[in-house]
């Protein structure tokens, strides 16, 4: 077990290192001078040089990279060029939007998909199943940002139940903020739900065909126990993997959906930061997102142990 841990953590760190280096290198060669962007198009070369020196942009690659990683490791991080504040604080403040958004989306997705998937599996090839599967096909085909737009059209433009976007801020209005996240989280969640429903269904179908399900029935267990205790626990294993992988998809979806709903989240931050050449922000968010995905998957791997004893190695 310890070997396994050490091995995987080593790989994890190596992966993060490679990602950080890649991102840094990519942004290093990216055309566009941050100093010029800060100072605007009419700035003099002299001012530009002064600012570049101040930002450390005149240093060679490895020195800059070392500085950056050093900063990250000591918990200081770098400062946003644009906002003149630690990127860390910026990420934390934006995470206050993206985090709940992703969480709500996952919750939506899970509460919709798992019961639907089980239902469909139990009613395989019957009308209920076909309807559910039809909807998931539609869900898979619908771009989430379009669903977002449609929801705005219906709920904001036509019925005026929600505002068409924007985010009041948690401290200004908790309820209002929650409401602002509702539609985007729903749009994100419904699409995820389609994938998870299909997966739950097929996984459940596979499990229900297993010999131990027959054994459980032969023991005289109630069908409910058979499905939810003997079946679900096994069926959830592949679902869990996909849920882990979905985090990456979800972050990607968040970038787009935050743009549809004008939510001041991480996705929008990185999208804008690239436009503004706020390199420290871009770098750290990309590394942060990649790390989040990798680490979540790492933990998902571990969660197997709790569900599937076969993964528990000595």
């Amino acid at each position, binding site marked *: 077990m310890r070997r396994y841990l050490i091995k995987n953590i080593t790989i994890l760190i190596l992966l993060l290192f490679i990602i950080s280096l890649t991102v840094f290198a990519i942004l290093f060669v990216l055309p566009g001078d941050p100093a010029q962007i800060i100072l605007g198009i009419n700035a003099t070369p002299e001012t530009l040089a002064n600012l570049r020196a101040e930002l450390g942009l005149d240093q060679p690659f490895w020195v800059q990279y070392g500085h950056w990683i050093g900063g990250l490791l000591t918990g200081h991080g770098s400062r946003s060029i644009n906002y003149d504040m630690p990127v860390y604080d910026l990420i934390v403040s934006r995470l206050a939007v993206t985090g709940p958004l992703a969480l709500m989306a996952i919750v939506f997705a899970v509460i919709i998909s798992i019961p639907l998937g089980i239902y469909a599996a139990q009613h395989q090839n019957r009308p209920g199943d076909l309807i559910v599967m039809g909807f998931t096909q539609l869900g898979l085909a619908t771009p989430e940002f379009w669903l977002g*737009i449609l929801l705005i059209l219906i709920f904001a433009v036509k019925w005026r139940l929600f505002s068409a976007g924007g985010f009041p801020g948690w401290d200004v209005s908790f309820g209002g903020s929650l409401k602002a996240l509702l539609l985007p989280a729903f749009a994100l969640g419904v699409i995820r739900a389609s994938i998870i429903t299909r997966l739950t269904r097929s996984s459940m179908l596979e499990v229900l065909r297993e010999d131990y399900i027959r054994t459980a029935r032969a023991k005289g267990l109630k069908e409910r126990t058979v499905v939810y205790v003997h079946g679900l626990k096994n069926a959830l294993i592949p679902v869990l993997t996909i849920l882990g992988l979905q985090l990456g998809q979800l972050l990607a979806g968040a970038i787009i959906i935050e743009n549809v709903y004008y939510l001041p989240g991480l996705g929008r931050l990185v999208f804008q930061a690239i436009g503004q050449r706020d390199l420290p922000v871009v770098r750290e968010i990309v590394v942060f997102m990649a790390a989040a995905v990798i680490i979540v998957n790492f933990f998902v791997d571990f969660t197997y142990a709790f569900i599937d004893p076969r993964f528990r190695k000595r």
Partner: protein
Amino acid sequence: MKRFFGNKNFLVGFILSAVVLGMALTSLVWTPYDANSMNPRHRLESSSFHHPLGTDQYGRDILSRVMVGAVNSIVVGLVTVSIGMGIGVLLGLAAAYFGRFADEAIMRFSDLLFAFPAVLSAILITSILGPSVINAMFAIGLFYIPIFSRLTRAVATTTWKREYVAAARACGRSEWAIVGRHILPNILSPLIIQGTIQFAVAILAEAGLSYLGLGTQPPDPSWGRMLNEAQTFMDMAPWMAIFPGLAIAWAVLGFNLLGDGLRDTLDPKMVRVR
């Protein structure tokens, strides 16, 4: 053929994607209006006989733009799948064949790609190379590499373990001959199925990137970008937001179903049941 069309998924998928394909091909020779021609007098008109899907803020015919947009989507699908498949299959074969170290390295590389939220990397890529449909295709194709390499690796590893491969080896066939005669034919069906599905995914991805302004550039019509432009006109001209989105969903649904249908009919497991 009959066994394909007997499958409902395939049949519906075939019809849906044939419509998209037909629209794209027609648009090469004829569209109701020039898709890019502006007509200030007919701005933001809703559906009418002259403009079945209405017009946009420049008075351009949305039907014509949706038709031309289909070409764009199909090209994106073809190119990205080719990139992903071409490189992915090679990597997957290499991983399966060499095993151990190479396998681990190649699979870690694909983990790496998997770990990056694709849109994020696409944003990065297009911001280095500039937003254009070519760069968007490159970005999407890049993310297809691990998908195809994993698929290839999985099928190739199991196929390589099959006894008929051992039999071929036992009678002295070279590894290349085995790849050519046994491995590739077995990978073919899953590749076709996966390719069709990734084709659909590419249409979605390109729409997303174009929606963010990172894909197809104006004035070329792209479904995603049309949605982007539609958003500020939503209360005035909702049709601008509805039809391009419908087109995306239609095409993606079509190719997804086609893929599912192919899976139903081509999957070797099904063959064995017979």
